[in-house]
């Protein structure tokens, strides 16, 4: 766990020699605590202090990378229990499972690799494919993994088998180059499984019996003793209640108790018989601390919902996703095209511009600087009032580009229309729809699109 400035100060020589560039050892310690300088700047610090500081600097939940190349993903290194305390940093990997004897395996692998959906200007994708050993021997499993790799080159993999020989065969067959997650070492197989993971340099999942955290600690100590550093924890739970209890306890133990053995990301099998039940489990896992979420259904609607949820939950609460406040042209607007105003929250912008574009009616879209807040939130916070709307209009230079003086304000701030008219003499203020989805109808009915 991170040390305070005073705790660091106690480990320093306290001679105030100034060679580090700071006036006192205390000032240096304070800067170190803020991670604003390096310990190496002190020529006199002893090894004991170095070890203590290094240990304290290690993240409480280790960052683990799965896969290689452009599609590799990293999970872990989280520092809070609740996103409002800071933010959640590393989005959980969303992985679709296919059984090794599934005749559709190659097709599923390709669909997972190709799935992509765009939201607020970002491309959202699935993170990987889990190949579960089902039927057949080690060679059959290795062949299935090879087929998946051929169908989806570069897609990160999770290799799921209780048989270390099967994992070894798949990794030796070339999969090791992709750095897949090996799933899983258990109390029964850990020695052989750790040996295989170490031989091929792959991250390793350890799995205990349902919710047995003590068993997980023992396994963690064992495999780390065998030289494995990149671990992922599978608490082996199979119900929503048990998942939530285990994930919460793991996160608390890592962050609040500094439990090194449990300071790793979590992998969970959210698979269920129906896609709906699976969606409910995966939703909880995304909101509550999972690092890798394995699902069975490649149902596009559910995948889209999960990717959107992940984007929502992992958005920094202090930094809403914003677009540049300015005058945007949608289509090729002319002097008689409508002028719409909205805020610079990216979701608001993309919803409005998408609908205007979809309507086929070119328009001027004025985006006010609302510190990235949506229309209603910005209005409530005084960041999208009549004055701001008028200033945005005046500063944009829109007046010289149109031959009318009509401004469409969002329906949610209909109550502002009188005030805006006072602030913008000569302008006619029109009230647009409350929801972006109703813009095409509005443009058609009122502006003749």
């Amino acid at each position, binding site marked *: 766990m991170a040390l305070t400035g005073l705790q660091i100060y106690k480990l320093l020589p306290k001679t105030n020699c100034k060679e580090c560039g700071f006036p006192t050892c205390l000032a240096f310690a304070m800067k170190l605590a803020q991670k604003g300088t390096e310990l190496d700047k002190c020529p006199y610090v002893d090894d004991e202090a170095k070890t203590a500081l290094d240990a304290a600097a290690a993240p409480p939940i280790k960052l683990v990378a799965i896969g290689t190349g452009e599609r590799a993903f990293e999970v872990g290194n989280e520092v809070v229990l609740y996103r409002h305390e800071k933010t959640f940093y590393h989005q959980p990997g969303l992985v679709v499972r296919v059984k090794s004897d599934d005749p559709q395996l190659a097709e599923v692998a390709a669909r997972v690799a190709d799935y992509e959906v765009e939201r607020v200007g970002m491309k959202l994708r699935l993170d990987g494919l889990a190949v579960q050993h089902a039927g057949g021997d080690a060679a059959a499993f290795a062949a299935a993994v090879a087929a998946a790799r051929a169908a989806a080159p570069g897609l990160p993999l999770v290799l799921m088998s209780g048989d270390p020989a099967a994992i070894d065969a798949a990794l030796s067959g070339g999969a090791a180059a992709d750095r897949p997650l090996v799933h899983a070492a258990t109390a029964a197989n850990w020695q052989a499984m750790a040996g295989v993971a170490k031989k091929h340099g792959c991250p390793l999942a350890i799995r205990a019996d349902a919710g047995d955290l003590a068993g997980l600690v023992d396994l963690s100590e064992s495999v780390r003793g065998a030289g494995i550093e990149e671990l992922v924890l599978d608490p082996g739970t199979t119900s929503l209640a048990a998942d939530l209890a285990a994930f919460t*306890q793991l996160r608390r133990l890592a962050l609040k108790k500094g439990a090194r053995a449990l300071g790793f990301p979590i992998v969970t099998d959210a698979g269920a018989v129906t896609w709906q039940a699976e969606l*409910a489990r995966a939703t909880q896992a995304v909101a509550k601390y999972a690092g890798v979420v394995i699902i069975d259904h490649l149902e596009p609607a559910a*995948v889209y919902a999960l990717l959107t949820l992940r984007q929502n939950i992992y*958005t920094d609460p202090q930094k809403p996703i914003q677009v540049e406040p300015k005058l945007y042209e949608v289509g090729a607007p002319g002097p008689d095209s409508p002028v719409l105003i909205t805020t610079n929250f990216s979701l608001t912008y993309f919803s409005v511009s998408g609908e205007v574009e979809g309507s086929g009616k070119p328009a001027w879209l004025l985006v006010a600087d609302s510190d990235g807040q949506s229309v209603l939130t910005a209005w*409530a916070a005084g960041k999208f009032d009549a004055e701001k709307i008028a200033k945005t209009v005046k500063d944009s230079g829109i007046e010289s580009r149109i031959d009318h003086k009509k401004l469409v304000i969002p329906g949610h701030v209909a109550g502002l229309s009188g005030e805006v008219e006072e602030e913008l003499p000569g302008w006619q203020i029109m009230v647009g729809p409350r929801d972006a989805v109703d813009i095409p109808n509005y443009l058609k009915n009122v502006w003749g699109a």
Partner: protein
Amino acid sequence: MTAVEIPVEKWPGAVREVTLGSGYGGGTRTSTVTVGGETSLPFLGFEGALPHRPALAVEVVDTEPGDWSPELVAAWGDDLKDPAKWAARAVAEGAELIALKLRGCHPDFGDRSATDARATVDRVLAAVGVPLIVIGPGTADKDNEVLVAVAEATKGEQLALGLCEEKNYRTIVAAALGNGHLVIAQTPIDVNLAKQLNILISDMRLPLERVLMDPNTGALGYGLEYTYSVMERLRLAALMGDAMTQQPMICTVGEESWRQKEGRAAADVPAAWGALAERGVAWEVTTAMTLVEAGADILVLRHPSSVGVLREALDDLTKGA
């Protein structure tokens, strides 16, 4: 074996218990619904008590909604034309509460009278035995007019009346106070505004055991994370003992999820979005589950399939808790 000491938070506070239906005697309900009472974060049975699981309400509208998603129209069919039939069907689909919205009283959507509103409420009360939530049309004058009439005509039914907002709560609170009902206090996704409105309502002497709070729901992809974090903060404050944050929370999940493009568009959307038949329910279920994790005590849903999925999920979450 290594012993692992599970970190357990000791919370000094608890969420208030609030009962809808005929909890105080009188009325005609055949069941009551009690929510709240939690002494831990959601579903952490190892840490505290969760005496009541979140309740599932289904939204019913007094007049046939002409602008609802085709998916909802397909699911409810002709029941949408008759609030009494619709409510009865919702109960058959698993609703523990009916949230009746008097939208037809809105000046722009029919401008029905207070007498009409009373008649509709009476018909729904006669059609189902579960407790009712009654939501006004959403304009201050008309809300006051119809909700007062409904409150007086249904004394003893212990309805939850809404929505109380900072700019319009006095008349509704007074009507609830005089007729044994509850109120729903809605504020725009903000911890302090939520507290402030609870204080104002409490100042009018309505016991806080008769107040639900609606933190204002943002749907998946449309501000869900704001609602999620405000609810987490409200629930943490409640457990830490802040009396004005200890109201059970109600979330209008159905309304928010189904009005988004994802819940409505059947064509001209990317293939990656999937079909509307799955997408609409996926959007509602994901929004609902996320808010359940943040402490939602009542979920107001729209699609019967979502009710089933949520009921199973809540069974699973409260198993052995």
